[in-house]
């Protein structure tokens, strides 16, 4: 997709995405509760690795790193909006899942930072501007 038309397409997609969310809510069975470790393995480990050590020069380490253990709001915002090579998880993980996976990251591999609550994620989700295109039917 040429990014010149991305804004136009994005408007269509945002409209489409909200319809899809409604449809999903009607049709899908209630999601199984996944542990923080499982959510991390599923959504994060491809880049940050199961060890949390990342890949030097490509994917940042989370183990022992100050950012994920720092103030919660920027961390939550990063998961919601993405940055650099990291995608937005806004449409893919709900508030509880984001809280669960971040709480895991903040306590795994010797990390030590207070847990993050779903209510906190909900608040940031509501206030943060969405800066990410939803998915196109066909891209390139």
């Amino acid at each position: 997709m040429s990014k010149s038309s991305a804004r136009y397409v994005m408007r269509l997609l945002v409209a489409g995405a909200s319809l899809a969310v409604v449809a999903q809510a009607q049709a899908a069975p209630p999601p199984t509760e996944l542990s923080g470790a499982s959510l991390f393995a599923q959504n994060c480990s491809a880049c940050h690795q199961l060890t949390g050590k990342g890949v030097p020069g490509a994917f940042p380490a989370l183990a022992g790193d100050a950012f994920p253990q720092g103030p919660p709001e920027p961390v939550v915002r990063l998961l919601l909006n993405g940055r650099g090579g990291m995608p937005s998880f806004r449409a893919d993980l709900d508030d509880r899942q984001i809280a669960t996976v971040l709480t895991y990251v903040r306590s795994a591999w010797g990390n030590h930072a207070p847990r993050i609550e779903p209510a906190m994620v909900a608040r940031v989700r509501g206030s943060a501007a969405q800066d990410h295109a939803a998915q196109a039917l066909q891209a390139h």
Partner: protein
Amino acid sequence: MNEAIAQPLSRRSFLEGLGGVGGTGLVLAGMSALGFGIEARAAAPPVLSGRAGKRIVVLGSGVAGLTSAYELRKAGYDVVLLEARNRVGGRSYTARRGTQLTELGGEPQTCSFDEGLYINPGPWRIPYHHYGYLHYCRTLGVPVELFNNDNDHSYIYYEKGSGPLARRPVRKQEVAADTRGYAAEMLAKQVNQGALDQAFSPGDKELFLDYLKSEGYLTDKDFRYIGTPGRGYDTDPGAGLQPGVPSTPYAMSDLLHSHTWDTLKSVSDFDQQRTMFQPLGGMDRLPAAFGRDLGPIVHLQHVVEKISQTDQGVTVGYVDAQGQRGSVSGDYCVCTLPLSVLRGVDLQVSPGFKDAIGGVSYALVGKIGLQMKRRFWEEDHAIYGGHIYFDDADVGSINLPSTGWLGKKGVVLGYYQFFANAAKISALSLAERQAFAAAAGQKVFPQYAENVETSFSIAWHRVPYNLGGWAQWSDDGRRDAYPKLLEPDGRIYLAGEHLSYIGGWQEGGIESAWSQIAKLHKRVNA
């Protein structure tokens, strides 16, 4: 800024509208007409006449680097090109028997397709308006074949909706005929009842009704949609006494609740339009042709570590295949490394330029090629190329090959996902990815899983020297960072799809190269 056209249509919404219906070229033409001073799009390489007695170091041998090296050398420059891998092409890549790939954090993978079979895991289709790409196919003698980018007879498999058309394959032609037929019928009813009389000038109404009848295959007398041969027959017409048994349209409510209609558009998006091409034999054919032409000026397995400059010239430090460090110097550098990779290079540029390089996202993208024992989609389903659309974003679409028609085996693109979905699928092992793809296709084709023989998968964000599928500019990034990177920092010029409005397409890389080397040449001749 000219505010004269701000009422009632703002300039921005006007341009967005152009983007929606006409794409980049129309936006640029429109912007030019509105006084933004934006160049018209180039359809041929720049003519680099005049002085050229300088040495240029080109970094990266994707199409942007190859184009830069080719045109600069042709103009008389002394060109040296460094490429990190043991092949040219970058993302313009084909996996075939013996192709090896190890993703960062991944298992080693060797493609074991049968001889002659391949998948293009990166760029894979060339629309008719990619003039630069087609120019080089002509120039370098790379034959192309048609790429089927839409197929009336393919399936849509949507599972998030409800009703009898959800969670089962539905032929696209049925969805298109019925949805548009019903829509035309409803609109015709409104028009005939006089509900839209105010919208018409004299004579318009009858013509509009004619259009609706044609668009929706409505009945002559009473403008009803009762099906049409194009949606397919229950029994096809044949010889002798077989006129065919017409098929019955789906209920409109079932179509609506299935959401399958979201695959329908009045016209394909600009980037997705037919005619589309692919190089005969694989996407790596064009880079290979460039590489043959450039010969010894291409230095493979030279990984760039450091780019430094003075007001006299540029020096690029590299590590070669033997692990030996070395450097090459030149008067200027054309750097086509993806910005995702350039971030990790010791780069001597201004802080503002460096920040701008960090200001862009790269798309996470996953694809898998599945070698199938037989072409059941052709033999049993009469589907020749095109896409099976999914609303499960982990799958995206299945794409049937536009090559090897009517042959024995074939390689199917088993998924094409982006962003968070690509993060998720790329966390799977190679065997798990193949199993995931086989299960997805099984929902559409009963023959699918049993025919999967072997696979080759890729997660572009985990591929060394790429670290992402393509640059994703946000509106802010496009406004603040992008213009900085279009200008050289000292003697360093950047080029690539990331510096175009044709992002993620090879054409963007080619036209960006044209644009940047023209600037460089102008400076040399100033």
